[in-house]
């Protein structure tokens, strides 16, 4: 709606509600008229009154961040109507768990390689020393080559205990949610997901959990240099996810001692410095979702 005698356009919120957008409209800053979908998603999940209630209790400096997170959450819910942000969190925790396990395995291999290298060096030093003591010529390169064997291709799978863990999708917050990405409606199994069975993983001090390993990037060594994301940028991993596809079958009821349900995740959050959260959020900006 165009204001009488003016050129400014009503914000997306006022346009949607078909009302006059005044200069004091609290939502006009966050819902530009050229991005109606963004407001529709937020309205669908939260509703205008709930958004205004959230904003009302915040400091002015917090409002922009809050709106960004609200918009992001609503966009995620639009994209993944069943699991929303909760699904994203669970997947991320699984990916972290997988990466940490692999890191642990690599470190173990590194340690063995270092020890092996050290042993070879010691042996060859001893050999030279004993030859010199006996007044013999230093051993030839050929003799030394016995000690300088080319390491055989390292079969890490044989050399290290490979843990095949059974994980639950929904152990991310120790909640009693224990369901997966099941869609009995379409019964179309995403091949990435259907073949795994899961049980609770309780030996996790990092409160990580397991999700599909195939959903880990197909380029596991690709390093993303950006530390932070725009709020509206949904991680490319998540494009492979279809909320509505069938996966697991075990479910547990939610327990309202959801004090517990969030306890572990909030503990892990609390352990992170507040400035890390702020720096992670520093680059968020409102971008178009249309």
């Amino acid at each position, binding site marked *: 709606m165009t204001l009488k005698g003016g050129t400014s356009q009503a914000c997306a919120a006022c346009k949607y509600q078909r009302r006059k957008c005044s200069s004091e409209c609290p939502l006009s800053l966050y819902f530009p008229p050229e991005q109606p979908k963004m407001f529709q998603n937020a309205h669908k999940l939260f509703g205008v009154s*709930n958004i205004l209630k959230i904003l009302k209790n915040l400091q002015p400096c917090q409002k922009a961040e809050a709106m960004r997170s609200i918009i992001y959450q609503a966009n995620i819910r639009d994209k993944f109507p069943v699991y929303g942000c909760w699904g994203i969190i669970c997947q991320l925790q699984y990916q972290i768990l997988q990466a940490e396990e692999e890191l642990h395995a690599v470190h173990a291999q590194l340690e063995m390689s270092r020890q092996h290298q050290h042993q070879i060096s010691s042996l060859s030093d001893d050999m030279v020393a004993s030859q010199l003591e006996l007044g013999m010529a230093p051993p030839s390169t050929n003799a030394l080559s016995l000690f300088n064997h080319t390491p055989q291709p390292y079969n890490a799978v044989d050399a290290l205990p490979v843990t095949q863990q059974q994980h639950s999708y929904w152990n991310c917050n120790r909640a009693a949610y224990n369901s997966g990405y099941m869609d009995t409606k379409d019964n179309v199994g995403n091949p990435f997901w259907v073949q795994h069975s899961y049980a609770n993983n309780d030996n996790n001090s990092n409160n990580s959990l397991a999700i599909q390993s195939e959903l880990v990037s197909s380029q596991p*060594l690709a390093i993303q240099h950006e530390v932070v994301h725009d709020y509206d940028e949904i991680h490319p991993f998540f494009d492979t996810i279809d909320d509505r596809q069938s996966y697991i079958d075990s479910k547990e009821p939610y327990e309202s001692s*959801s004090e517990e349900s969030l306890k572990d995740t909030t503990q892990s*959050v609390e352990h992170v410095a507040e400035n890390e959260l702020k720096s992670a959020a520093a680059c968020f900006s409102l971008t178009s979702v249309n």
Partner: protein
Amino acid sequence: MSSSNSPCAACKFLRRKCTQECVFAPYFPPDQPQKFANVHKAFGASNVAKLLNELNAAQHEDAVNSLAYEAEARLRDPVYGCVGLIFILQHRLKQVQTDLYNAKKELATYIGPQAMLPILQPPG
């Protein structure tokens, strides 16, 4: 009614009769009042009902549980809600991936380029 006589937590909260057709009854049992209270405060009962209406019945429970999680997170942290945790986890994941890459690079100096291959087999 969610059980023989007791209204579900949603109908108790909203002070209305809990019928057989109550859409909330299967997911908000009367012994978990806080679950519905959080969801209603963050999103509103009507929004939740509309969301559920767009999904299959088989997806309702998961959707309700994820909404309950997000609602509680939003009430605890009105600024970031559960989104803050997403970005922390993304940051953490990148850190671990960087460490993994560097460790594999060092391992490759000992055992060759096969060090860059995945070590752990995916489950299943």
